[in-house]
Structure formats: structure tokens, C-alpha cells
């Protein structure tokens, strides 16, 4: 890794970073717009359905949010715990396949039948053809454009500095935001997670602002301590893990709000959280966040170990309780507790969501306060 610094490209990178930030802002506004209009539409549809004499399962349907329009209660929509809801779920799952569009009795099956699609727990997160959400569609397109601009900015930064673009806090932040946006856009291909759009774009925006306002650092070569291929391995996985934790943090917050709303609705009270109609029920959120978190946890475990191996090469000990190591350990422990909480009675549901939130706050703390204010061997903030 030499020091062939390309100043012009560095400046271009910064301009594109700003441009990307503005585009994310537009996407953010569009997502919020979609939340508002879509939840209004659902609310209206529900009121109409009620007027037409809805059946007794209305409550559990309503909780499924967008799923209620699909005409069937999904397998995972057993949030209310009522026997009626349970049976309904089993009925639809067992009988005709997921969306009630399966073949009628008496029709012979052929090997060409591909009805296994969507027969999983997260069916409530599938796209529904019947609903058009122009604002959401626009938001996703704008976000994809922002992502491209952002990618250019990050790649240009890397080329300008002639090394991987994650060697100081500015780069960690901007590359981290890119990973968050990328992971989110990729999951969007498979699942309808547009309801977390406002939070994800908001957080990406926040990260870009933090990078450009709080930690601006011009393009610079690597100090000797960072000149190792472990920089590529250790830090890239750390960025990926942080990206995943960012998304699950957003989902955990929504889960807490949603479960509160569910409780209110179950008690027959009014709730101010009407916008959560767009959001799937809290159990689905919890389960999906768990999937992402378990990947994040594996990544974080790897980060920790790769860091230890690097530390062994650079500093002569694989673990020395340096401040950064302490916090990496704390984060690992909190997420380990989260993983256990999921299978411990009394600790799943809201409590596990809180653990996920605490874990993410530790990640943020580790990244900001520990890097800037605590003395330690990881003093590469570039500030």
C-alpha cells in the first residue's frame, strides 16, 4: 500500500457524498409520505370493512397490517393468541397453501407445481400485488439512486487514497452507511420491508451527516499500524455487522411500538400509533429481526476474533482489554444475551427487543465516544 494520493478524486468523492446525502433525504421524505398515506388508506379500508359487518377475526387481521387485504390470515398472524386466529392460520396454511390460490380439491398435482414459494414464517413480509403504493415505489427508486451515488463516492474515496475506504471514522461512517443502505435494498428484493424505510434512510442520513460534519477527514495514507490485510477483513466484517445491527435496531423499536399498540387494541383502547398499521405484527418483527441478528452476531464474533488475531500480530497479545476490546466484548456479550433471551421464557418479546436496542446503543457508543474520547490503541479516528 503506497501513498499515491489522488486529491481531485478525493474532492469528487466528497461532493458525491453530499449529493448522496441529499438524495437519501428525498427518499426519506418519500418513505414518510408513504407511511402516512398508506396507513391512512388501510385505516379507511378497515373502517369500511367494519361497516360491512366484518367477522370476528377483524382484530387479528388488522394487526397483520397489509396482510389483511390479501384475503387470508397468514401463518404467523397468531399474535392475539385467540383460538380463532390460531385455527384460521393453520387452516389456511394446511389447506390451500399460503394465499388461498392453491388448486381446488380433486385436481391432480404435477411436479411443475411450484407452490412452495412464500410458505415460510415471514409471509406477512411478502409483497402484496393488490396494493399500489406510488410513494413507496418512488422512495425505493430514489434510494437506489442515492445508493449508486454513495457507492461512487465511497469507491472514489478508496481509489483516491489507494487503499480500502475504512481506515478512519469518516470512512467507517460513510462506508457503514453504504452497507446499511445496501443490505436494506437487497432485503427489499425478497421481502416487503418498506415500512422500515423511514428509519433506515433516517439512520443512513444521520451516519452521513456524522461523517461529513463531525468527523471530516481528508484523504490520507495509512499509518503503519493499519497496514495489514486484516484491516480489510476485520473492519469490513465489523462494518457489515454494524449495518445489520442498525436495521435490527430499527425493527426492535418498531416492535416495541407495535406490541404496545397491539396491547391497546386488545384492550379495546384508542391508539395514537395509527401509522403502525403498515407495519407487520410484533411477533413477525421479532422473528425477522432475530434472523438478521443471528447473522450479525456471527459477523460480530468474527470481528472480535479477527481483531484478536490482528492484535496478536500487531501488538503481541491477542487480548489485552484495550478500551476498544472491552467494548467489543460488551457488545458481544449483550448480543449473546439477546440470542439466549429468545429461547428463555419471560425474556422473549419486548425484553429481547430491549436487549437488541441496548446492543445497538453499545455499538454506537463504541464507535463514537470510545473512538474519540477514550485513550486506547485503536486511536485511528483521524481527528
Amino acid at each position, binding site marked *: 500500500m503506497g*501513498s499515491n*494520493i489522488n*486529491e481531485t478524486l478525493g474532492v469528487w468523492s466528497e461532493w458525491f457524498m453530499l449529493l448522496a446525502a441529499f438524495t437519501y433525504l428525498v427518499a426519506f421524505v418519500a418513505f414518510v409520505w408513504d407511511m402516512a398515506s398508506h396507513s391512512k388508506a388501510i385505516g379507511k379500508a378497515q373502517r369500511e370493512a367494519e361497516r360491512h359487518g366484518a367477522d370476528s377475526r377483524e382484530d387479528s387481521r388488522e394487526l397483520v397490517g397489509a396482510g389483511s387485504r390479501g384475503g387470508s390470515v397468514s*401463518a404467523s398472524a397468531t399474535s392475539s393468541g385467540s383460538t380463532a386466529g390460531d385455527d384460521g392460520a*393453520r*387452516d389456511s*396454511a*394446511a*389447506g*390451500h397453501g399460503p394465499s388461498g390460490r392453491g*388448486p381446488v*380439491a380433486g*385436481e*391432480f*398435482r*404435477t*411436479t411443475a*407445481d411450484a*407452490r*412452495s414459494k412464500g*410458505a*415460510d*414464517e*415471514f409471509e406477512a413480509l411478502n409483497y402484496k400485488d393488490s396494493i399500489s403504493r406510488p410513494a413507496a415505489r418512488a422512495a425505493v427508486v430514489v434510494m437506489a439512486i442515492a445508493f449508486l451515488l454513495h457507492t461512487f463516492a465511497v469507491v472514489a474515496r478508496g481509489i483516491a487514497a489507494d487503499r480500502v475506504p475504512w481506515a478512519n471514522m469518516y470512512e467507517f461512517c460513510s462506508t457503514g452507511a453504504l452497507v446499511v443502505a445496501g443490505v436494506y435494498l437487497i432485503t427489499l428484493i425478497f421481502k416487503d420491508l418498506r415500512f422500515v424505510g423511514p428509519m433506515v434512510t433516517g439512520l443512513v442520513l444521520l451516519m452521513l451527516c456524522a461523517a461529513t460534519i463531525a468527523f471530516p477527514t*481528508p*484523504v*490520507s*495514507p*495509512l*499509518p*503503519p*499500524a493499519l*497496514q495489514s490485510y486484516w484491516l480489510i477483513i476485520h473492519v469490513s466484517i465489523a462494518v457489515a455487522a454494524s449495518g445489520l445491527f442498525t436495521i435490527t435496531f430499527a425493527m426492535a423499536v418498531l416492535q416495541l411500538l407495535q406490541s404496545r399498540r397491539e396491547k391497546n387494541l386488545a384492550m379495546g383502547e384508542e391508539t395514537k400509533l395509527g401509522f403502525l398499521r403498515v407495519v407487520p405484527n410484533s411477533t413477525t418483527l421479532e*422473528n425477522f429481526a432475530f434472523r438478521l441478528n443471528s447473522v450479525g452476531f456471527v459477523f460480530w*464474533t468474527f470481528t472480535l*476474533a479477527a481483531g484478536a*488475531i490482528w492484535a*496478536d*500480530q*500487531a*501488538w*503481541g*497479545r491477542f487480548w*489485552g*482489554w*484495550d478500551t476498544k476490546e*472491552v*467494548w467489543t*466484548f*460488551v457488545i458481544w456479550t*449483550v448480543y449473546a*444475551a439477546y440470542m*439466549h*433471551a429468545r*429461547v*428463555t*421464557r*419471560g*425474556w422473549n418479546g419486548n425484553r429481547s427487543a430491549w436487549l437488541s436496542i441496548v446492543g445497538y446503543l453499545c455499538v454506537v457508543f463504541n464507535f463514537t465516544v470510545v473512538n474519540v474520547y*477514550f485513550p486506547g490503541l485503536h486511536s485511528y479516528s483521524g481527528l
Partner: protein
Amino acid sequence: MTQVRDQRDQKGNRNDSVAVPALGPLGMLRWAWTQLTKMSTALVLLLLLAIAAVPGSMFPQRIQDPDAVNSYIEANPTSGPWLDRFQLFDVFSSYWFSAIYLLLFISLVGCVLPRAAQHYKAWRSKPPRTPKRLTRLPQYRRVLLGGRDGAEAPSPSEAIQEATKALKKRGYRVEARDLDGETPSVGAERGMWKEVGNILFHVALLGVLISVAIGSLFGYKGQKIIIEDESFVNTLVAYDSFTPGTNFSADWLNPFSVRLDNFQADFHRDTTDPAQYGAPTDFEADVTVTEEPGAEEKSEKLKVNEPLNVGGTKLYLVGNGYAPVIRVTDGQGNLAYEGPVVTIPTDSVYTSSLVLKVPDAAPDQLGFVGLLLPTAVMDEGSMPRSVDPGLSNPVLIMSSYFGDLGLDNGESQNVYVLDVDSLTEMNSMMSDNGAITLDGANRSAELPDGKGTIEFVDVKRYVGLDIHNDPGRIPAFISFVAAFVGLIMSLFIARRRAWVRAYVGQDHNGVQCTVLEYGLLARGEDHRLGAEAEKLTSLWTSLWEDRGVRDFPLNSSDKA
């Protein structure tokens, strides 16, 4: 750890906790053991461990920087000693931190061992019996076999035999039952490796702990500064500082030697980037290593991220600086000192502080305190300063003292600190004659009152080495790899049970068919269970497509 979701387990725990008052000491122990090995206890211990680690980042720690701890206690005379009493400067070796992680590991062992035994048993036994009512399972389907173009349905036992084969091919371990009866069935299970991974992960964590313990018992670490052209032999006396493991014996030091031939430091030289100008870009030491006395000499390169491994002992480049070569002649005209003096760089431009004690000088012992400026700039009216880490215009600026250095009474002293209280000052920045300033043009200076002369001969470079031997390193790495593999196995392998049962039935036209019903049960997290059920349906379809496979919807009486 123990699955608290298990109904029976819950009941068992409740009974135990209710029975406390009637229990004897043994019963109490058993009760404590049950409490400790519960998953919720482990969870709380995990969270406690996380919280307990936090002070380790808030307060300076002795394992990293004992000096910082001392100055912290000095700066906080009231709270400091109290913090020390609660071991807040030794968090990671404190009683409370150790208590938490030891309890956690005991809990882990108490959880994992029974589970391992249980899993061993499960592995050896046949897949579980077919439940009476498959409809109760989270995934339940049924299909009608036969009837296509008048084709005859496979008999129930035939269907089960085929299904058994297909399930086995799909990775299930299978057990067909009642093949001669009216309702033959097959029990199947897959993903047995999930639990193996889970147990492996937890046992491997224990392995990491043990490896760390081995390292701190039988390893050692030391520091040594080597100046260019000097050698270091790995013996106890040669170290500048040495920290042995608790059970370390000095006989274990392998007798290698290292000579520093050359040290090269590169700095950022791009003038368009003032913020980064002069930042180090590369450190590289050329060394000659002899593995044992009489062995062949080998030339090696030592860099920051590339330690040298000499027979299991690792050498790390952790520091570097300048060592000006100084010659001191005393008041009687004798050579009192000649050699390089290690200076300590204090900033990014290598403004280095220097202390030189000359106890051999006569009639009075001499002491010098000062700075080495590698690239000095001396403007009128301002303090001399270094503007670059490179060695362009090295200047020595020193104060000089004479008197008793206090070295003769046998007390050990820090070589980098000169206690000037008992000494008499000859030169300093503040004194009338000014500080001694030596550079390329003025290489020597006379001390006042005929106390001698000091001469600036040359500047050499030195490197600071950390020398480590940690026998727990390799075991820790192996344990970690095992833990990582175990973690991935336990998280991403799905453990499922499937049961298939066949019996004779009729389709809606009253034609005799074979009904194939099947249910699935997940153990642990499994969001793909429904997908697996659909896959099985496709499997049956491919098996009996020519005879006819039809969906057989449930009616309300089938419900559990």
C-alpha cells in the same frame, strides 16, 4: 443451555423452588445447582458480565498502563484509593469480575453436560414415535394418492416404504413402523448436528478460557530496546522489563539472539496535505537472528504488523526513536561516558527527551537533562523546536548538573528520570549562560567551572521490541475456530422432525385411495418449516405423479 421452554423442565424447577425449606444441605446444593444452571440465570450473568466490563474502559487499568493508574490515584486522593480497594484498576483480574465469569462458566458446564448426554442418547435412539394426531403439529398436510386415469393407489405400507426412502435421501434419519398394520407410518428427524454445534460452541468457549489461563500461567512477556548495531540475547538479565507468567521458569527462555542492523522510518512527504505531512507511513527494521548460540545467522525484516517468530517466541516492533551518541569527559580529563543515549519521542515530530547520568565522572558526578530535536528550527525570540520527524538538522539542547546522583546506595532508579533536587545546576534555559546547545556545527561544549566537556558524536536509531511467549495462543485459536464453526452450525442448521402416516381412504367420488398425512415439528428457531412441508408435498408428487397425487383439504372435524 437448558431449554426453559420445555414444559416438564418448568414444572421440575417449580417443585424444587417450592421445596426449599424442607431440604438438607445436600438438597440446598442441588437447589442452588438447579438455579445456577437455568438459562435465565446464565442470561443475567451474561448481562452482569457486560456491565462489569464497562469500568475496565472508564478507569486506567494496571495491565495496560500502571503509571496512568498511579497518576490517577495521585490526582484523585480521596476517590482513588477507594476505587483501588474495589479493584477498579484491575477490573479483569478482580474478584467480582472473576466471580461472574466463573459462575457463568459453571452454569455453562452444568447446562451443556446434561444436554450433551441427552443428545448422545437421542442420537443413538430411533426417531421419536409417531404422534396419534398429526393435526396438532405446527405444520400438517395430507394428500390423496392414486386415482389418476384409473391408476391404482399404492398400498399404505408401500407408500410408507417409498416415503421412508425419499426422506432418508433428503437427509432425515428414519424409522418405519407398523408396516404390516393398517396405518403404517415413518418417523424422521434431521438436523442432529444443530445441537452438536451448540454444544461444540459452548465447550469451545471453555477452551478459550482455559487457553488464556495456560498463557497467563506459563507464558512471559518482556520489553527490550535495541540500538543499531547492538544485540539482544534472550536471557532474563538482558530485558529492560520482564513479566513472567505465574508458573514461569527462567529456564524456559530459548537462547536466541537478535542484532539490529538498520532501522528505516518513512514519513508522509506530500506537501499538498499539510494535515498529514510528516505522519509515519512505514517502519522497517533489518535484524540478524541467531536461533541458538552457534547456529546460522539469518537476516530478517521486522515490521509493525509482521512480528518475528523465533522458535515460538514472538518479537514485535512496538516503538522506535533516536539515540544520540554522546561522549563526556570529566573534570580530570578522563573519558567518563561514551555511547548512545536512548531518548523518548514525545510528539509526532520526534521531539525526544533525554536524560544522561554519568556516575563515573570525577571529581563530581554529572547529570544531563534535555531534548533532541531531529530537525531543529531556531528562530530568534522563540523556543527552538523540531519541525519534522526526519533527521535533517539534529540539535541537542541540555541542562547540566553536578553532585551526587544517588546511584551508589544501591537503590534502583528510573534511567529516564533525573532527580535534580540534590544536584547543583550548571546550565539551563533559565540560567545566565543558557542551555548547552550542540548541533552539526558546534559538536562539543565545555561545562562551567572546569567540570568537563560534552560532545555530540552521532545519532543512531533504536527500536523497542516486545518479546512474548504465550503457549495458550494456538489452543485459543483452535478453540475459537471450533466455537465459530459450532456457532454457525447451531444457528443455521434447522432441526426438524417429520412424521408420515398412510391409510386407506376415499376421494370425494368414493373411489378408494391411499391417504398420506404428514406433520412437521421444529426444534428451536425454524422459519422454513412451512417451506419444508411444501417441499415434502412436491416430493410425494414426484414419487407418485403417474398414479395421481391430489390435495386433500382438511374439514373442520380434523382440527385439533
